[in-house]
Every structure is written in structure tokens, then in C-alpha cells.
């Protein structure tokens, strides 16, 4: 029995119990914090299953991003769930009985009939990717990236990633449409010196933390084609760093630096345009869309090494631009969430 399997089972049990507590707690802040704790156990599980890239994207998104967005939403709406009270003992007993029966049933099913355990050989398609991604001897299908996940994201299954970027872009456009009175808010109430945020100790320590997270996210973004990481991982980590600045220094600090919604949207659009150019350029020069390295039937190929730095063809640049676009998109969301709700209510003429 491997220790990693035991740890995996342990984190799964904790996840199940935390789900129960989340269902029955009435305080939503409590539920969100417990959900963040649950996400940490999900990250542990993903790491133990050797999905390091997924764990790296999951950590900023679920532990940082989701919790912050939910907490903002609770702050803008209401904190307690109005449910008729259950007897706590009854809840506990029924849930425990349910779990016991379910575990026994499923355990018997799994052990007696299917006996499923992960297999020892992966699928042929996976073996093909692993065999050809950095094969110097047979360059027919190679991507020149030693990181098989990044190679799949930006080369073998590039159109999937394009779809993903499109969905993310559309969702941010929808969020902005729901908060469409931003300009009017700032015309009515110009930025004052009074909006300064927390004390100097909090500000100084948060600046140090900002620098640390920014360096880590830059490393994730720039080395995503060589080591686990990538554009989305780095971009979302950087947006969490921005959030660490927004909470103590207030949103007006970022706005004072010139990082407001329109500019961030511009930055995001520039990133997406550069991605579009990079993926369309091979098609114009005799290759196909999303081509990275030269193939036998399509002669176009991006250079593998530029100035002594291994760029893996277009993968490095795609990671960089994607990281830029994602960081800007997240920053827009956090900025519009940190505008006080009264401004919007007054503008929408909602009865209090």
C-alpha cells in the first residue's frame, strides 16, 4: 500500500465531511471559508494524482478567486440562510447513517463486482503524446516542449484552448454588462484622499506579499512550457496578487496608478489579439491554424530557440499573452466587485 494512496483516501474523507458541514451551516461566510479549506484538500488530491498543472491552476482559482468572489457577493447580498431549524442531532445521525450505508453499498459494489482500480498502462493516445512531444530523433509530430500538458494545451489540442478563452472572454463581457454604470459612479463621486484603506503596517506587509506572489506568477507564466505551469496559472496567480493590494490599499490605489476598467480591457484585448495573430500567422504562410513546429506536409515552423532561450516555438508566447489576458480579466472582475453596492442601487433606482 503506497503512502500517497492512503493520503488520497484521507483527503477524500475530509472533503466528504466538509461537504456535509457546508450543506448544513447557516452562516454563508462559514460555508465559503469551509469551501476554501475543502479546495486545499482538492489541491492535495490533485497533486497526489500527479496532476501538477491542474493543482497549480486550481490553487489560485478555487482557494483565492472563488472565496474572494463569494465573499464579495455575500457582502453585497445577505449573510445568513433563512431555513427552518433542524435538530442538530437529527441531522448528524441521519447523515452518518446515510454515509455508512452508502459507503458499505458502494464498497461492496466496487469490491465485489467491478473492482476498479486505476490501470497500469495508459491509453494509446496518451502514449503517443508522451512519445512524440520532445523526441529529437523523430520530429514528425514533435512540439519541442518537454511539458506534455502545455504541449497538449497549445499544440495538439489548441482549438479546445481557444474555445476556453472565448468562454472566459464572454463571461467577463457578461459580468461587465451587469455592472454597466461604472462610468456614472465615478463621475458622481470623484476619487478623494479619504479613501485610503487600512493601517500602514497592513499596507507595508501586503506590498511585500504582492512582490512575492508577482515573482511566483511570473515564473509560472514564463516557464510554463518547460516546467509545470502556464499562462492561465500565472495569470490567475497574478490577479490574486492584485487582490492582495486592493484589500488593504483600497481600489483607488490601483485606479490612481491608471489600472482602471477600460485600460485593463484594452490590455486584455491586446493579449487576445496577439494570440489570434500567433495562431493565424502559420495559416497565412503555408501552414495550418495553431501550427507550432514544421510538419512534413506543412513547411512553416516557429523557431525553437530565440537568443539562447528555449521558447518551444509559439508555446512560450501563447502562455505569455494568455497570462496577460487572464490577469487583466480577473483584475476587471475584482475592481468592479470592490465598488460599493449603494452606487449601483441608486443608479438603477431600486427601492431599498
Amino acid at each position, binding site marked *: 500500500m503506497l503512502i500517497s494512496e492512503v493520503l488520497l483516501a484521507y483527503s477524500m474523507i475530509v472533503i466528504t465531511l466538509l461537504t456535509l458541514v457546508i450543506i448544513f451551516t447557516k452562516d454563508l461566510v462559514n460555508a465559503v471559508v469551509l469551501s476554501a479549506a*475543502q479546495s486545499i484538500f482538492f489541491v492535495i488530491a490533485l497533486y497526489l*494524482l500527479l496532476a501538477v498543472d491542474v493543482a497549480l491552476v486550481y490553487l489560485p482559482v478555487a482557494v483565492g478567486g472563488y472565496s474572494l*468572489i463569494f465573499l464579495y457577493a455575500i457582502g453585497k447580498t445577505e449573510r445568513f440562510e433563512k431555513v427552518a431549524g433542524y435538530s442538530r442531532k437529527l441531522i448528524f445521525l441521519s447523515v452518518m447513517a446515510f454515509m455508512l450505508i452508502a459507503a458499505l453499498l458502494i464498497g461492496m459494489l466496487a469490491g465485489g463486482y467491478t473492482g476498479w482500480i*486505476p490501470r497500469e498502462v495508459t491509453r494509446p493516445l496518451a502514449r503517443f503524446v508522451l512519445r512524440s512531444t520532445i*523526441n529529437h530523433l523523430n520530429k514528425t509530430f514533435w512540439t519541442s516542449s518537454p511539458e506534455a500538458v502545455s504541449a497538449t494545451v497549445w499544440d495538439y489540442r489548441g482549438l479546445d484552448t481557444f474555445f476556453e478563452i472565448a468562454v*472566459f472572454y464572454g463571461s467577463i463581457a457578461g459580468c461587465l454588462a451587469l455592472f454597466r454604470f461604472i462610468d456614472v459612479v465615478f463621475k458622481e463621486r470623484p476619487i478623494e484622499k479619504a479613501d485610503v484603506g487600512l493601517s500602514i503596517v497592513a499596507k507595508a506587509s501586503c506590498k511585500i506579499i504582492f512582490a512575492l506572489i508577482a515573482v511566483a506568477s511570473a515564473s509560472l507564466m514564463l516557464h510554463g512550457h518547460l516546467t*509545470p505551469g502556464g499562462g492561465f496559472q500565472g495569470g490567475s496567480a497574478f490577479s490574486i496578487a492584485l487582490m492582495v493590494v486592493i484589500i488593504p490599499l483600497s481600489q483607488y490605489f490601483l485606479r490612481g496608478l491608471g489600472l482602471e476598467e477600460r485600460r485593463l480591457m484594452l490590455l486584455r484585448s491586446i493579449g487576445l489579439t496577439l494570440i489570434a495573430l500567433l495562431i493565424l500567422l502559420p495559416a497565412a504562410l503555408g501552414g495550418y491554424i495553431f501550427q507550432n513546429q514544421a510538419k512534413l506536409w506543412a513547411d512553416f515552423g516557429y523557431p525553437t530557440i530565440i537568443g539562447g532561450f528555449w521558447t518551444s516555438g509559439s508555446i512560450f508566447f501563447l502562455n505569455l499573452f494568455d497570462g496577460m489576458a487572464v490577469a487583466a480579466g480577473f483584475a476587471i472582475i475584482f475592481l468592479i466587485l470592490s465598488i460599493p453596492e449603494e452606487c449601483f442601487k441608486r443608479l438603477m433606482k431600486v427601492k431599498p
Partner: protein
Amino acid sequence: MNFVWIMIISCLIITTFLSLYGIATRPNMIKKIVLYSTFSDVINVFIILLGYRRSLNPRVPVLHLHPTSEEIAVFEMTSVDPIVQTLVLTAIVIGLAVMLFLTFLVIQVYRLYGTIDTREIAKKSRLRG
């Protein structure tokens, strides 16, 4: 060894059903969204589990820049599946996009109805016609 995997998989299945139960029965919309995030995470772990390989020394699908042909052969035979990881990466990003929009919709619902309790929203919308 089998027992540990039975444990892992039954916990995953129970969490799936518990989160679905929560989505169906809790009236508060934010609670529904939080449980929906749990639900999608469990499904993602399931998919990752499909690409896991239970050998003595499974490894992360990352190699170095100048491998020899022997190293590539060993890499092919010991590394876990990179394709399911890519799919889950995409799924997490799309899930995040959906979650962002859902949260903003909840805020908008609160602006319009003054509550995010689905029962009260149903009453109010019936009154409005």
C-alpha cells in the same frame, strides 16, 4: 490496496450525491453556487483519476530538454496521462467563467428582488405576474 481505492471512489461518489442534494434542497443561491463548485471539483478529480496510472513509480508528464531515446521510452511507460489533465484544465477555466457569471447574476437578482432566497423570489415573481 484494493480497500484504499474502494474508500477513495466511494467518498467521491458520496460527495457527488451530497453536493447534488445540497444544490436541490438549499434555498439560498450562494449556498447553491458553493455546492456547485464542490460538485464540479469532484467530477474533475474523477476524470483525473481515469488518467492516473497505478504502477510502482508513476511520474508527472514533464521531461527535460534533451532526452535520449531510452529516456523517452521510460517516460512513455511510466508517466501519467497528460490528455485528461489538459481536459480538466480547460474544464476548470470554463467552470470559473460560468461561476463568475452566476455570482454576478445572483448580485443582480438581489438588486431586483431584495433577497436571494429562491422561495421568496418565487413568491415575489408570482405577485408581479
